[in-house]
């Protein structure tokens, strides 16, 4: 059967502003919201919108992502015809090359698109958190007889300079596009979701490929070029919850949005479920002296201590007298008794020793990289063991795979960075 539309999810980004969280895994594979990984939202949106053929373009540290997606079973994408396909960079007869930009990544996989031969291609970013019905956007695209439709969202004016800004008429016809303009003239930002007619996509990518001056990026090069060529571009305005959880602060806040009484972003909608591989664990248990309020807690957890304002992923153990406030604790970590954690992100399979204090003290600039670590949030990586009775300040970063022997003998002051190796290959 010929598919009307297929999706390509760009999942190769390093997400370097997430620091140690993306040191060993790609940004789309970062855990989110108590049981998900970020790419689950794009994948679930696809299947919920009736798109069952999806190519996932990977490049940066894809192991966790490949493992997570597998054959697409959780999203019902284990199909005879279509389904999910991982598209990793590959060598050609004469050339060995990586994906040099978003447009180049799609260009290099043109054979995949041609094999499916759909009428439309939707290009998505695998690192955004949102629920969106792409079939409505496709209807809009068809109604306007568009060559390309870009999904757009209104952002606060003061943040507009971080996005690709669209100039469009009230109906949505685009007449201008600026990538990250210093002085934006509009606050309508591109969400990085594009629907292309197949022939338009082919043409413009071939052209872009032969343009030596191009950075091969959709927002920076391809879209402005199409506009210059007088193509019919439309903006589809989306008004729901949408976050590019690109920084530690944004990632933290978006997770915390989920614990409010009536969250703006509702994961409980039975008509728009978000799918993910479910951990095979029993329901979670709250102990006799456990206390939980204003938090979300996933399956397989055991809570004997106190949890407030936090997001706890599956399989986490929180021992007696441990106090967790304003934290994100990822899967299968253990917080030992008597420890106190505030504003701390704890990675997967990490152990926090007993009597540890974390996220305490005055704010100080981070010594390693004050651009990435610029809030009071302390980040502790995955597979790390924090020894007993240590005090950790705020805005501290502790790498993945750190063992007790790697810790200094004294307490860790605010703004400190405990990192290992240059590439994290311990």
């Amino acid at each position: 059967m010929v598919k009307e539309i297929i999706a390509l999810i760009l999942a190769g980004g390093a997400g370097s502003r997430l620091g140690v969280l993306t040191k060993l895994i790609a940004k789309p594979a970062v855990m989110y919201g108590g049981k998900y990984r970020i790419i689950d939202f794009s994948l679930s949106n696809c299947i919920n919108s009736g798109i069952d053929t999806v190519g996932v373009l990977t490049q940066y540290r894809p192991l966790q992502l490949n493992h997570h997606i597998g054959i697409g079973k959780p999203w019902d994408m284990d199909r005879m015809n279509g389904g999910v396909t991982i598209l990793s960079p590959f060598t050609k007869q004469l050339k060995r090359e990586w994906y040099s930009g978003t447009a180049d990544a799609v260009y290099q996989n043109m054979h995949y698109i041609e094999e499916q031969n759909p009428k439309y291609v939707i290009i998505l970013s695998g690192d955004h958190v949102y629920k969106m019905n792409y079939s409505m956007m496709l209807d809009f695209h068809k109604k306007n007889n568009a060559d390309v439709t870009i999904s757009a969202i209104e952002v606060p004016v003061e943040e507009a300079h971080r996005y690709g800004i669209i100039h469009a008429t009230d109906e949505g016809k685009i007449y201008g596009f600026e990538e990250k303009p210093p002085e934006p003239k509009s606050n309508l930002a591109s969400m990085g979701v594009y629907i292309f007619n197949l022939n338009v996509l082919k043409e413009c990518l071939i052209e872009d490929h032969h343009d030596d001056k191009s950075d091969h990026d959709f927002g920076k090069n391809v879209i402005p070029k199409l506009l210059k060529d007088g193509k019919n571009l439309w903006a589809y305005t989306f008004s729901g919850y949408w976050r590019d959880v690109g920084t530690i602060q944004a990632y933290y806040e978006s997770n915390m949005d989920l614990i409010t009484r009536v969250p703006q972003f509702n994961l409980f909608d039975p008509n728009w479920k978000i799918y993910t591989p479910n951990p095979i664990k029993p329901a979670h248990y709250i102990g006799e002296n456990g206390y939980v309020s204003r938090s979300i807690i996933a399956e397989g957890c055991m809570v004997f201590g106190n949890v407030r304002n936090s997001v706890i992923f599956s399989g986490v153990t929180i021992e007696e007298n441990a106090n967790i406030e304003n934290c994100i604790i990822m899967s299968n970590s253990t917080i030992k008794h008597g420890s106190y954690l505030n504003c701390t992100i704890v990675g997967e399979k990490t152990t926090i020793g007993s009597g540890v204090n974390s996220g305490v003290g005055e704010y100080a600039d981070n010594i390693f990289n004050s651009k990435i670590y610029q809030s009071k949030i302390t980040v502790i990586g995955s597979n790390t063991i924090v020894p007993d009775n240590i005090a950790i300040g705020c805005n501290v970063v502790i790498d993945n795979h750190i063992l007790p022997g790697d810790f200094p003998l004294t307490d860790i002051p605010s703004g400190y960075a405990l990192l290992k190796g240059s590439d994290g290959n311990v």
Partner: protein
Amino acid sequence: MYNMMGIILTGGKNNRLKELSAERSISAVPFGGKYRAIDFALSNMINSGIRNVGIPTQYNFHSLMDHLGSGKEWDLDRKNDGLFILPPYLSEYGTGWYKGNADAMYSNLTFLNRSNEEFVLINQGYAIYNMNYTDMLKQHVDKDADITIACRYMKDFPREYLCNLGIVEQDSDQRITNLQEKPLNPKSDFASMGVYIIKRKLLISLLEDSAAHGYYEFVRDILVKKVNELRLYAYEFTGYWRPLCNIQLYYRTNMELLNPSVRHELFEKNGRIFTKVKDEPPAKYNDEAVVKNSIVADGCIIEGHVENSILFRGVKVKRGAVIKNSIIMQDSVVCENTFLDNCILDKSVIITADKQLKGDKNWPLVVGKSVVV
């Protein structure tokens, strides 16, 4: 263990679980926050390496079929072997409804004949335990037994319920010398778990033999009658095991899950328990939530007080509601300022605001499926 296949018996009509089994086979009764009883029997087989499983069903098997599906969650959606659900059928020979569990297996002789494993493991879909059958098979082969029955000293089991089980006597070599099915006055507490290992060929001939004589029950008509003729051996299992034979045991067994060592034994020690996934988001606790000594599944939203209870997936507990010593099944809603003690709410029950429902520890109050109180 590719040399052993499995059959799970799912039981006939049983109203001892009251409203819970009124609309479903007893093996499909929800258990422990996210499971159904049969998950344990099935997962034990998977964890023991069995890859060919037949499940004869009869009484109200809709929810069971819905739960098992293609066997995907148990990794049984295989090209060869996998999961076979065997409902009763009519044919030229007029089988129709299964008259008993031996008849259920006899009606599916084709399934037994077509399989090529040397041994068959038969177990019951309504027992809660985590057991690896590898050891039992080894003993079966070592003793050169005809049939090995897994048995257990029921020291931790209320004596008054022993009469629901089969009581076994064995000699010093573990050979079974006497077998009493559901005796009024049990002589000992060494009881059969209803788990049998038998050679496939022998099972086929025993089933054919009993059908020829018009017998239908595996235990009553085959095991008890042939206790001296066949080499029956007992295999002692020392772990946690509970059959859900009546509502008291059902309630008690659920509550025992609040004990960490029971949970550890059931869900971690010998292998994981698989079940159908529902893709619910993690449970959400709002400001007013107070939860103590309870099991809470994904998809719950809690704003009330929950103590010593089990909440299944998607349960909503509204502000001011108090739930104590209760089992609340999937998608039920407990509204504002309602008080529940010793209750079992089936799926999709709604208890409206300001109600007081109270059962007794030994006689929990059961509210049937989709009832609005």
